[in-house]
C-alpha cells in the first residue's frame, strides 16, 4: 500500500468506509449492511489504534440511524397491501367509420327561393324597425348610409299628410295648425310641423302665423304667391 493509504484513518477503509460515504449508503440495500458488526469492529479498532475521533463517532451514529430508518421504511412498505395486478391491456378497437353513401337530397332552387322570400321580408322589417328607432334627424355620421331610406320615408309621410290636408279642407282652403294636431301626442305634433315645413318648402302649402294670437294657419290648394309666408 502507498503511504497515502497509511495516512488515512482506519475508518475510511472497508468495511467501515461505507458509513462515511452517504451517496453509496443510499444506493445500498439496507438489509445487506450488518450495523452491529460494523459498530463493534469500529469501536474495537478505535481502541486498538488509539485514533479516538468524536467527529468520526458522530458520523457513524448518523449513518447507523440512517440505515435503521431505511430498514424501517422498507418494513412499513411491506405492510402495505400489494398493488393489484395490472389489468390486461384493454383491446381498443379501431374507429368504426360509418359506410359512406351518397344520398340525393330533395332541396331544390325553388325551396331556396321560398325561404329567401321570407328572409328578405324579415330584412325589410328590420330596416323599418331601425328607422323607427332612430331619431328624426340622425346624427351626421349616420346620415350618409341611411340617407336614401330616410328621404324616402319623409316623402312618404309628406304625401300622407298632404292627402289628409286636402281631404280636411275639401280641396282648397285654410286650416289652423292647432286643429290639425288636436288630440295627438306632442311628438306627433312636432313631426307634423316638420313635415309641413318640407311641404311649404316645396310650395305645396302655405304657412303663416298671426302675430297677436301666435296661431299658425295652413293654406292648402292655393298658389304660393297668394300665401303669406311664415311670420316669425
Amino acid at each position, binding site marked *: 500500500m502507498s503511504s497515502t493509504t497509511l495516512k488515512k484513518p482506519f475508518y475510511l477503509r472497508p468495511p467501515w468506509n461505507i458509513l462515511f460515504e452517504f451517496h453509496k449508503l443510499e444506493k445500498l440495500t439496507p438489509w445487506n449492511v450488518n450495523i452491529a458488526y460494523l459498530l463493534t469492529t469500529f469501536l474495537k479498532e478505535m481502541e486498538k489504534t488509539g485514533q479516538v475521533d468524536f467527529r468520526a463517532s458522530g458520523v457513524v451514529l448518523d449513518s447507523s440511524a440512517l440505515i435503521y430508518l431505511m430498514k424501517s421504511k422498507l418494513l412499513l412498505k411491506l405492510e402495505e397491501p400489494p398493488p393489484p395486478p395490472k389489468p390486461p391491456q*384493454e*383491446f*381498443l*378497437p*379501431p*374507429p*368504426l*367509420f*360509418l*359506410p*359512406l*353513401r*351518397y*344520398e*340525393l337530397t330533395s332541396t331544390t332552387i325553388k325551396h331556396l327561393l321560398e325561404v329567401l322570400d321570407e328572409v328578405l321580408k324579415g330584412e325589410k322589417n328590420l330596416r323599418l324597425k331601425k328607422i323607427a328607432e332612430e331619431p328624426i334627424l340622425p346624427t351626421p355620421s349616420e346620415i350618409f348610409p341611411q340617407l336614401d331610406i330616410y328621404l324616402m320615408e319623409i316623402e312618404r309621410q309628406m304625401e300622407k299628410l298632404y292627402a289628409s290636408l286636402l281631404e280636411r279642407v275639401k280641396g282648397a282652403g285654410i286650416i289652423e295648425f292647432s286643429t290639425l294636431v288636436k288630440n295627438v301626442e306632442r311628438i306627433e305634433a312636432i313631426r307634423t310641423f316638420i313635415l309641413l315645413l318640407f311641404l311649404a318648402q316645396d310650395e305645396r302649402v302655405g304657412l303663416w302665423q298671426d302675430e297677436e294670437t301666435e296661431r299658425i294657419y295652413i293654406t292648402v290648394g292655393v298658389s304660393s304667391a297668394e300665401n303669406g309666408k311664415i311670420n316669425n
Partner: protein
Amino acid sequence: MQKMEKLTTNQPLQDEKMRHELALLEAALYVAGRPLTLKELGSILKTRSKKKVKNLAKILMEEYAKRKSALEILELKDERYVLQLKADYTPRVRRLVNRPLLSSGPLKTLSYIAYRQPVSQKKVVEVRGHHAYGHIKLLKEMGLVAGERKGRSTVLRTTEYFADYFGLSHDTATMKRELKRVFEDFSKQEKPKQ
C-alpha cells in the same frame, strides 16, 4: 355478365327489359343512400313480386362484386339492400364528403361500445377518457347507441339502426363476432402501410 347472357341469349327483348330493370334498381339504391326494402324496390320496378325483385337485386349485387368497383351492394338481414362505398376506401376519400361526419374520437368510442356491449357508461369513460361523455351524447343523438339505467349506472349498447347501418346482425353475439372480423381485417390492412 356470363350468367345473364346464358339466361337471356334467345330473348333479346327480355334482356333489354331486364337491363332496364337492373338500372332502375341501381338508380333507386344510388339516390336513396339508405337500405331499401324489397317492397320499396318493387314499387320502383312496378312489381309486387318480391321474388322478382330479389332475383334482380342478386344479379346486380353479383355484377357489382365482379367488376372491381369501389362500390358494393349489400343484402342486410331483413331483406333490405343498400349501395355504399366499400369501407376500405373511406379513409382516402372521407374529406370529399359534403356533410358533417363523425370524427375519429366518437367513432372510436362507438367501436368500443359495439365491441364490449352491453357495457356500463362508467367503463366506457374509464377506457376512453372524459371526452367520451360528449361522444356518447352525440352517438345517442344519431341513434347509433342507446342507454338503459340499471340501478345507479347506465348500460350502453348499439341500436338496430347501428346494425343496419353497418350491415351487421341484430343479434349481439353474432354482431360481436362479425365486428371482431371487421377489426381484424382493418388491422391487417392498416399495419403494412405504417
